[in-house]
């Protein structure tokens, strides 16, 4: 599904140039559950942003589903992204002014799904995440675990092929964190590819494979058994 080759990304300020990704190569197959680990500043998040087409690389190739996307413009990337990729963030990133239902509905609106179909699909996914009873609440009225489940519901409502999760349990206690990891595992078992950035060895054990980064390079890969 994903094949990146010699990917490079620099950050420049007036005085310093920082190399975030240094000729990084890796690949992820369809249906895989991959965890990316590494110390702070090793380039995990940069990699995730490029994989999610929120950011573009400076050098190298990124092939997504057999399409070279490294030099797509913003509009094309947005188009590809909204049909194929769902995001889960550490800080949930729900819109405070929208209810649970409306937050989950958002991706469907941007992909042009009809209103009646939207209701059906949002209800379906809320049901699956067991937060149906909270559908008319606002994010601030929910616990962290519930908020993250809403965020996951939003990520999967469009039935994406790939879910990118950036420390999804970082803001949660261990019990809520485990729930979220179970959810992701279920989704993976139903065929969704998952790439997750994490600091937690515990969470990483849910994945099939761990890619360890240091200074913008892959230093080790562990295959889980």
């Amino acid at each position, binding site marked *: 599904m994903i094949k990146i080759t010699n990917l490079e990304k620099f950050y420049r300020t007036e005085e310093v140039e920082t190399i975030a990704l240094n000729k990084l190569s890796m690949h992820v197959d369809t249906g895989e559950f991959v965890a990316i680990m590494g110390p702070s500043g090793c380039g995990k*998040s940069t990699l995730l*942003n490029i994989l*999610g087409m*929120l*950011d573009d690389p400076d050098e190298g190739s990124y092939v997504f589903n057999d399409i070279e996307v490294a030099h797509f413009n*913003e*509009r094309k990337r*947005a*188009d590809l*992204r*909204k*049909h194929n990729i769902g*995001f889960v*963030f550490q*800080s949930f*990133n*729900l*819109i405070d*002014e*929208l209810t649970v239902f*409306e937050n989950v*509905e*958002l*991706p469907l*609106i*941007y*992909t042009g799904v009809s209103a009646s179909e939207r209701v059906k699909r949002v209800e379906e996914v809320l049901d699956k995440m067991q937060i149906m009873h909270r559908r008319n609440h606002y994010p601030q009225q929910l616990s962290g675990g519930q908020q993250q489940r809403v965020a996951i519901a*939003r990520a999967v409502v*469009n039935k994406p092929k790939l879910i990118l999760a950036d420390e999804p349990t970082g803001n949660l206690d261990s019990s809520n964190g485990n729930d979220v990891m179970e959810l992701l595992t279920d989704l993976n078992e139903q065929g969704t590819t998952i790439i997750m950035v994490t600091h937690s060895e515990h969470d990483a054990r849910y994945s099939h494979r761990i890619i360890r980064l240091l200074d913008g390079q892959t230093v080790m890969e562990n295959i889980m058994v």
Partner: protein
Amino acid sequence: MFKNYLKITWRNLLKNKSFTAINIAGLAIGMASAALILFWVQNEMSYDQFHEKGDRLYVMYNQSVFDGKLWSWNTTPKPMVKALKQDYPQVEGASRQNDANFLFTVGDKHLNLSGSFVDPDFLTMFSFPLVKGNVNDALSSIKKIVITEATAKKLFGNENAMGKTIKIDSVDYMTVAGVMKDLPNNTKFHFEYLMPWKYWEKVNGGEENNWGNNSVRTYITLKPGISESAFNARVKNITRSHSDIKDIDVFIHPASKWRLYSKFENGKNVGGNITTVRLFLIIAGFILLIACINFMNLSTARSEKRAKEVGIRKVVGAGKSSLMAQFLGESIMIAIIAGVVALIIVQLSLSGFNLLTQKQLFIPYKQPVFWLIFLSFILLTGLLSGSYPALYLSSFAPVKVLKGTFKAANAALSPRKVLVVVQFTFAIVLIICTIIVKQQLDYAQNRDTGYAKTKLVYTMMVGNVDKNYRLIRNELLSTGAASAVTKTSAPMTEGWSDTWGYDWQGKNPEEKIDFNVFNTDGSFTKTMGLKIIEGRDIDPAQYPSDSLAILLNEAAVKVMGFKHPVGQIVRRDGNVNLTVVGVVKDFILQSPYDPVKQMIIQGPKSWFNVVHFKLNDKLSTAQSMKMAENVFKKYNPEYPFEYKFVDEAYGTKFESEQRIGTLASLFAGLTIFISCLGLFGLATYMAQNRIKEIGVRKVLGASVMGVTTMLSKDFLKLVAIAFLVATPVAWYSMHNWLQGYTYRIDISIWIFALAALLTTIISIITVSFQAVKAALANPVKSLRSE
């Protein structure tokens, strides 16, 4: 998708109530001010544009050289109408118009009403429709009169006025042959009735054929297809070919230009009121712009709060264009709310605005065009104010905002700062203009009039006043109501007559010099409190030959070049010899902004219209006026005693400037208010954004005063830049404005200093409120909340 936008907009508005209030209030006040001005402009532009034959309707103008300058004026000789109709086949209709003032009596109702003498064509040339009666017949005989509906109501109540008889000045009777719809508020005419010209001739002793007496307006309609320039070429010589006057050209001035383009300089049309209209349009545009700038500033200042939403929307698939649509939709929605509030403000303030502008403006709720314009106005405001925030907000990169590393730009020249500078520049320009207009007004008001205008009263010589004048004068003096009485040709505050028909020894025969003319029967200087510089007052009681005596003012002595004016002979119209008996100090007859013009005050062998009397100093004004009223009632019982105080009449000379001054201060105030709303909002968000910095500084030992100063300084810098930009703009425009007045102030430095001080104080108050609040906050709280 649209529903989703609406929802989030609405919730955002509710969630940030103070922000919403500031935003909507600023926008609504801006829109309301702009709308009021637009109503005013629309009214000005619509003057006399409703006549069906308007594209063929003209007024006649004369043009001639005086004192080496080409002058244009639109009073014309009475026989011109006849010549136009007889000798110019291009002319379809023609009518004179002159003011009329008569006592109307119906039963025991006596009313002094003012109207116009016109020729019968008037009714078919102008679109002043008759509710009753026939336009072709209503003024066809000397016994017929047309009255307006309001006049009909005054005279006859709810009865049908048609065919009823009105007694005119207790000498004649006229029959109502037409009832006219009341005049609209956007016409130059303001008559209460129309009388046939024939009646003027009856009252004034027959048809007048004098081409040298320019005293009436002449209106014409041309036949379709005849151009202004073609007719001008033909009509230029009309006076020359009908009289022995050889130095007057005639031209026509179209109805479409009467209101706004009626100023002529050296024979060229140089605009007129259109200058004011343009100025007000600019002000309206700027006020609206300032309100929109407020909106932009506040929206972008809040961008850090909205950034997360933008990021999330982008992550889940929103494109830049759909985000722009969302933010524009928001601003349009706010503009709609503000528009409704503005409409309410306009409705509530319209009566006051009408009082100020002397108009009867109203909101035309029933006209679809109004709603169309109203909606476009809202849409324009929404787009204008939403464009920049939409562009700005939709361009956030999601990677940055969602990571929490996002900080709105704080560059040296951020657009937000530029916008604040623009706002305050305009506000400061308006403040400076207001101060200068007020100062000029004060200056002119404090100018010495040259005569004593307090306790001086005048009344028109109506009914039997002329016949019984001697008795009235003697009784006013003997009862002690007045200390001096004189009759004159015109009120002391108005120049009714001027002529270049004087000749004297040493005059250059090639030169035409125009004099103001005033007449008196004596006691002139005593009644008016004028100072005699040389010679004596006209006094026919003591000097019987004084019937042909004249007084000169200082300006006249100067222009005539007399070394010893007293005793000089001045010849009038080539046949009357007048003797100068005295010279009076210059006094202001017409504009208090102009130098005093040369003037000749003629003795009793002339015409009179007005009685002036000086009230007795020893009695209260009320007492003397009561006594005076009894005297006039006794000798002129049929007429109501109507009078004016000269000082009040003099005060009306300043109305136009006063109006400009009041409007300028009103709009300056509004602009400052809107700008401060914006500044307040900005300061609020700035304080919130820097809350952590303030906390750190306080922990490290910064004082409240220090923090307040630090926060206020940034804004004051912007105000200072605005002041630097505003000063030359204000100086230039006010310098030009003052050129219109001969008698004017110099623009002094302190005006700018005052404006700077005012603006600084206002902005300090606005900003420091938030700055102090931020500085006083407990740093522990702000530092923990990260």
